């Protein structure tokens, strides 16, 4: 059932992509084949006690199989990690259950007033762009990316999305790029009933998105996060209420159906 592996792997590179953001690429060999968008790895950082969860940003067959992670330097662990340029790191993964890549809506019989095709709408806030980036490359129907961040310097991978064929809608809190405000302000106006939603970002943003999706009866998926110690379901640190039941973000998620999430 599982294809998760706990092993030391070689760093291909760990480089700054923009301001406080780094991209870490690890050679994992065939393990890349079992990685799907929304899944994550626990990465051991020397000098801090617990491993840290990192969402997969990309996985491909380059250099014999690699996975990439995008992270922002926010605390002690990521600070130490950003200074490691080569050598080995301990990784456990891929872990968790990712996004469902099959369309949710197309199977519904078209009625007269809503006969347009279902579109995949992907939404990212902040470093949530990491798992959305991986997802964007794997979804067949490419429609619109809604991407919000604090400032222009926090917006990443825009060219990659455009090259893949996504229409990109941006917002920044300071107005330095795109719409000034929150991305949910635009999403609430533009999201259509037959769209399928995929979202990853900070909890306040996800709460807003769940509200919008419920009002418009839109189906989809959201990736959640909480502090976790093990990534395997053992510490039970990352419990969340899904359909009134306790579920573990690390094991049962991090991606859940929008209509089941209680935030």
């Amino acid at each position, binding site marked *: 059932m599982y294809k998760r592996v706990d092993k030391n792997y070689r760093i291909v590179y760990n480089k700054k992509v923009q301001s406080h953001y780094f991209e870490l690429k690890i050679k994992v060999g065939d393990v890349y084949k079992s990685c799907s968008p929304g899944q994550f790895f626990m990465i051991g950082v020397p000098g801090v*006690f617990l491993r840290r969860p990192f969402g997969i940003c990309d996985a491909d067959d380059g250099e014999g199989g690699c996975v990439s992670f995008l992270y922002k330097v926010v605390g002690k662990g990521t600070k130490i990690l950003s200074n490691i340029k080569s050598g080995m790191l301990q990784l456990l993964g891929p872990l968790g259950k990712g996004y469902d890549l099959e369309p949710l809506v197309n199977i519904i019989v078209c009625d007269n007033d809503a006969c347009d095709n279902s579109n995949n709408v992907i939404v990212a806030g902040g470093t949530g762009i990491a798992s959305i980036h991986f997802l964007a490359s794997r979804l067949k129907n490419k429609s619109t990316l809604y991407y919000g961040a604090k400032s222009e310097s926090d917006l990443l991978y825009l060219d990659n999305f455009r090259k893949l064929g996504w229409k990109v809608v941006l917002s920044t809190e300071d107005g330095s790029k795109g719409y000034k405000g929150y991305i949910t302000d635009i999403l609430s106006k533009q999201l259509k009933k037959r769209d399928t939603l995929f979202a990853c970002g900070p909890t306040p943003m996800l709460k807003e998105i769940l509200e919008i999706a419920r009002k418009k009866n839109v189906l989809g998926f959201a990736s959640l996060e*909480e*502090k976790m*110690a*093990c990534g*395997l*379901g053992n510490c*039970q*640190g990352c419990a*969340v209420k899904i359909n009134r039941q306790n579920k573990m973000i690390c094991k049962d998620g991090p991606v859940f159906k929008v209509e089941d999430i209680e935030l």
Partner: protein
Amino acid sequence: MKTDLNVNFAGIKLKNPVLTASGTFGYGYELADLISLNELGAIVTKTITLESCDGNLQPRIAEVESGILNTIGLQNIGVRAFIEGPLEKLSKIGVPVIVSVAGSSPSEYIETAEILSMKNGISAIELNLSCPNLKKRIICHDLRLVSEIVRGVKNVSKLPIIAKFSPLVTDIVEIVVVAQDSGVDGVTLANTYPAMAIDIETFKPKLSTFKGGVSGACIRPMSVRCVYDAYQSIKVPIIGCGGIMTGEDAIEFILAGATAVSVGSSSLVSPKNLIKIICEIKDILERKNIKSVKDIIGIVNKSLG
């Protein structure tokens, strides 16, 4: 020389002295793809209660220097669901299964233990008398309650009964002696230490319940002290627990008086650490030409005469 790692804990034959710590290894069978579960000395399950328990609100975990602060709140599926699901899978692994039990009253402990004792596949019951995360008081702060629970459980169960205590008691010796006099077959020393961490950005506690229990490398010397003090005062065997990350750490507990050790936080970092610790114990004892791990239990006490 090949060192024999077998130990006998309260009548349970363990192929080595390394156990999982309750609450850190799920129900025990879920990680079969990552490590060989049958290489473990025994599996201690997460704590089971009479009825299912939702646990505490988020956030439940905060990292501290060399350790973890947690307030899980005994989230579990309840004893009946445990018997129907996890227990059957656990008993097929081929290592002794020790079920951790808690309750909000003596009668809940006793009833849960009684239900478990009617089932096959359980080698012992560990009474969690020390979880600091229930809103009510910690049971082991009341000697009368400890005695009532141990006696009550012994009355309804033929299984070996192990009592796990909080290290935060006025006198660890007093409490283990009471447990022994009440009929307990072994003790686990110790659980997490009541602790707190505060976020200096938000000015708020890092855990939803404000306070939680701290575990990990940072607590080890304090728990070694508990084992050392208890060993001098009781005859029943001790499971040492607290911040064991390596074989050296485990041997330290054994030298202080532990017959077995349980490993928690280290297995959260990586489950493979459990197997690594077993290998390291063997390597160290072989290097020192020790015939059996049993030969070094508590010898730090003996060397002091």
